[in-house]
């Protein structure tokens, strides 16, 4: 975790290539058929409840059970492994890459993720703040909430089975929230980013600098 930031270096990196590259892998073994072409624009899920699926990327069939895997992010298809089209692939095989254009907010978050302590999702589920933390967030905002190891901060919910999630990590304030209530989070993805009080000035500096120096939204 960095305490010093070379802004020039970071900005150079993001200015020369303001994209994130996401590998799209086979979700399980099966026969694959690509549904998009190289360079095609793809859309992320949309709608008030994120219920309108993103662009179909590939169809995978196993034991006569076909499913279409859709894009979870907007961008363009930057590379397709065409040799795998129509072939039987193993789970996890990279089928294509999506080039996602980063927004200013995402760039800030990417930089912050190098500084914040990221608390990961223990399993794929939907997550909600515990009632106590939620009411404190509503009153004061997340960045006014200090959490310590052992605090019950989040509830993991799946089919009416609620599991309290206890915080493990360095004490600090909840600086970033990476989950939305009701939206599934994959195992290992960060739920929150926590920042010790001593790092707050550095974080403020990053946010101010990116906002001032970055032109596009």
């Amino acid at each position: 975790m960095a305490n010093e930031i070379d802004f020039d270096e970071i900005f150079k990196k993001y200015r020369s290539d303001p994209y994130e590259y996401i590998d799209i892998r086979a979700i399980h073994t099966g026969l694959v058929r690509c549904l998009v072409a190289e360079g095609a624009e793809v859309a992320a899920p949309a709608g008030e409840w994120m219920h309108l699926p993103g662009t179909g990327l590939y169809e995978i069939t196993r034991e006569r059970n076909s499913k279409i895997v859709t894009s979870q992010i907007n961008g363009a298809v930057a590379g397709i492994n065409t040799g795998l089209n129509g072939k039987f692939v193993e789970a996890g095989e990279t089928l294509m890459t999506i080039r996602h254009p980063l927004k200013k907010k995402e760039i800030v978050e990417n930089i912050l993720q190098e500084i914040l302590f990221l608390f990961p999702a223990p399993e794929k589920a939907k997550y909600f703040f515990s009632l106590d933390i939620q009411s404190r967030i509503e009153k004061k905002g997340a960045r006014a909430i200090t959490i310590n190891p052992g605090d019950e901060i989040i509830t993991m919910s799946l089919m009416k089975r609620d599991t309290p999630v206890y915080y493990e990590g360095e004490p600090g304030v909840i600086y970033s929230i990476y989950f939305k209530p009701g939206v599934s989070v994959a195992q290992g993805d960060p739920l929150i980013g926590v920042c010790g009080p001593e790092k707050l000035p550095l974080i403020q500096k990053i946010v101010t600098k990116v906002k001032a120096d970055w032109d596009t939204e």
Partner: protein
Amino acid sequence: MAGPAIENGQSGELRRFIQDRELPLRRHAHGGMASAVLRYGAFVGSAIQHHPALTRAMDHALAHIIAMEESDRSVASGTTIVADSLSCSRGRFSRQWHAPPGGLWGCLIHVNTLLPASRPLLSLAVGVACCEAIRQEGGANACLRWVNDVLIGGKKVAGFLIQGFSGPRHCEEYDLVGFGINLNNRRFPEELQSSAVSLAEVLGHPVDLPHFQLTFLAKLTWNLGLLYFEEANTLRENGFSGDGGEHMLLRRWKELSDTLGRRVVFGRNIFENPLYEATVTGLQDDGALMLRLSDGSSIVESCGEIRYRGETAEAAQKKRPGAGG
């Protein structure tokens, strides 16, 4: 206060009850597989603690787990804690649950040995077990509302609260299955009078509580056993055992539920934050609810709760093809 009466192992009254009542019933419906399913579920009621009064059965279960782990002993999966009354019981989101003498209140400790694909179905299994038990006791109109509320005539007769918990010492995974079934408790606080009902009110006579407890535990033995039985079948690559290769528990849930085809309001906390209205179109293999929104698009929900809107259960039942039970 007198200490709890403790029965160890599914060896006493419950085992005889299953042998004499549940097994013949299931054998009649399912043939040779019935014994195997009941064997898989035989952990239910492996130890039964009965208390005259507790504050909360879930808290007692948690304390039991912690005490057992601290003394380097294993918690028997299926341990069931029952109390005649609970003084501080609650439902989800700190909702109050009224638990005076006359109902069946308690908590079953399930040590999780299910695969991730089966674990979400645990919530459905406890609802199915309770609905079957109530129907067998004479509550023929009992039905399930997703996920596992048991209703009679639109009023709640039973509810469940499942809490996941990792043991502090060995990180063993537990599911604490809290249950509350309104049997002979006929009086409800004013705020619950329009939404809750007891089985005795419906039947017009008191329910034999110890007998109902045996029936409920026998139904749990079957339905939790089904989760393990079907899991073993898929591991042997035999597929599920229900008609058309469907998981038997899902099949049974659909038979007992009046949720499919209904117009519902969905929300994570339906009372404080209802989110949207939709029509239920089906149930996914993992028990998640499939809904169709007003604009024709679809959405799948695996956590949250619903309340019915508009049409009556009977009308929805008539509309729904293949509705049974």
